[in-house]
């Protein structure tokens, strides 16, 4: 397989630069309109950071990097985005009432729009050839259409998010909105490397007008 030398590589795409406003890290809640976006994602259930969670994260990264490398070779390089997560509780309960091992999540990595089913399937084949586990087949392409959202930077341990969320909820109410969508987090810090007090996480929750 020859590299495509006929087409000069475009400078590497940085999704955080092209969508800067959406990755704002305000210390006070703000209202933002989030455009439709493509993600690679894998869904699961269980304690954040637990066994199933880590396996899923591993599969997600394997697929994300395999797709990125193929795209880079084809002349369209882009940076692999930081991980994100959508969170919910199936039973109809809340994060407050349900134990962590019952929490549902979809781990996400934002991906350029020019990545489609063909690229995903090529990556799966490549990983299967090397004997990678079945989990990679559960990584899917998802589109999120979050539209109007409240967004705020949360600093500190994940367990203190409820305080930040309360602030976001109060702000939303002031503006005439209420929460209407899945809790979405963008992990700016790697919890393995950064002390809990210094973790930076963007929290984003879709909202809609109160009638």
């Amino acid at each position, binding site marked *: 397989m020859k*590299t495509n030398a006929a087409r000069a590589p*475009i400078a590497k795409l940085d999704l955080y630069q092209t969508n800067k406003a959406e990755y704002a890290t305000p210390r006070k809640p703000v209202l933002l309109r989030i455009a439709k976006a493509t993600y690679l994602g894998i869904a699961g259930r269980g304690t954040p950071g637990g066994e199933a969670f880590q396996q899923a994260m591993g599969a997600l990264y*394997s697929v*994300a*990097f395999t797709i990125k490398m193929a795209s*880079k070779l084809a002349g369209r390089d882009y940076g692999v985005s930081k*991980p994100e997560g959508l969170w919910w509780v199936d039973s109809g309960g809340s994060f407050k009432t349900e134990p962590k091992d019952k929490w549902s999540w979809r781990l996400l990595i934002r991906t350029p729009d020019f990545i489609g089913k063909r690229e995903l399937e090529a990556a799966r084949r*490549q990983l299967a050839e*090397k004997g*990678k586990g079945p989990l990679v087949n559960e990584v899917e392409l998802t589109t999120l259409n979050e539209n109007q959202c409240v967004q705020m930077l949360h600093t500190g341990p994940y367990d203190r998010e409820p305080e930040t969320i309360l602030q976001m909820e109060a702000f939303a109410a002031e503006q005439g909105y209420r929460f209407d969508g899945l809790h979405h987090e963008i992990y700016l810090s790697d919890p393995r490397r950064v002390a809990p007090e210094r973790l930076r996480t963007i929290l984003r929750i879709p909202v809609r007008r109160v009638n």
Partner: protein
Amino acid sequence: MIQHLEQHLDDDLSLPELAEVASFSPCHFHRVFRALTGEGVAEHVRRLRLERAAARLHNTSRSVLEIALEAGYQAHESFTRAFEAAFHTSPSHYRTERSSVAPSMATLGDQPETAAHIELIGPLSVIRLRHVGPYSDVGQTFERLAAWVGAHGLFGPWTQGLGISYDDPEVTPPERLRYDAAFTVPRAIPGEGEIQGLDLPARDYATAIHKGPYSGLTVAYAGLMRWCCGTGMDRYPMLRRWSST
């Protein structure tokens, strides 16, 4: 084994010693080496030492005699002869020819992020795959390495793709350019066959950030080399080119 040779380029490398490191008989080792690299052992060592000398002529202002001695030659004359045989020009002429076309640091751009500085990088564990040949073919090597890394679940938020180049493309002929495609890994990994782990100790690197198309890299790199010499760094740094993902 090749790594051992590269790291010990300045030692008195003898065939029996090298063979021992590779656990072969000297005769067998020589045959295998030539089959793998297309060069005899002595030839390979001589070429690497001369190429490194050429790069030093080009990038530093140290005396030709000093560079000759470092390259393992006893005198100016023997070095000049060997150099002329390899490069078809005398060492001093090579130096003046090259210097006149070298760009200055000013061409690197005026953004503060591109400014050169010394940065402590490491310790780092990487997994790498050696590529020998023109840089334009490096893509395939990266693809093979990425497939292995992905299959072993070693991609994660820590991942950086790196290219480590060991030769100056202005000095070494394209078919002999050595380059490692590499990815950082969370801990030291043993690797498998040609895919090898490599642990890089913490050390100072002259660093600059180049933003823009790949075509501008050669100029940017040359500018950084000039800056190194301008700061009076007396130890010629091992030529490593990092491009991160």
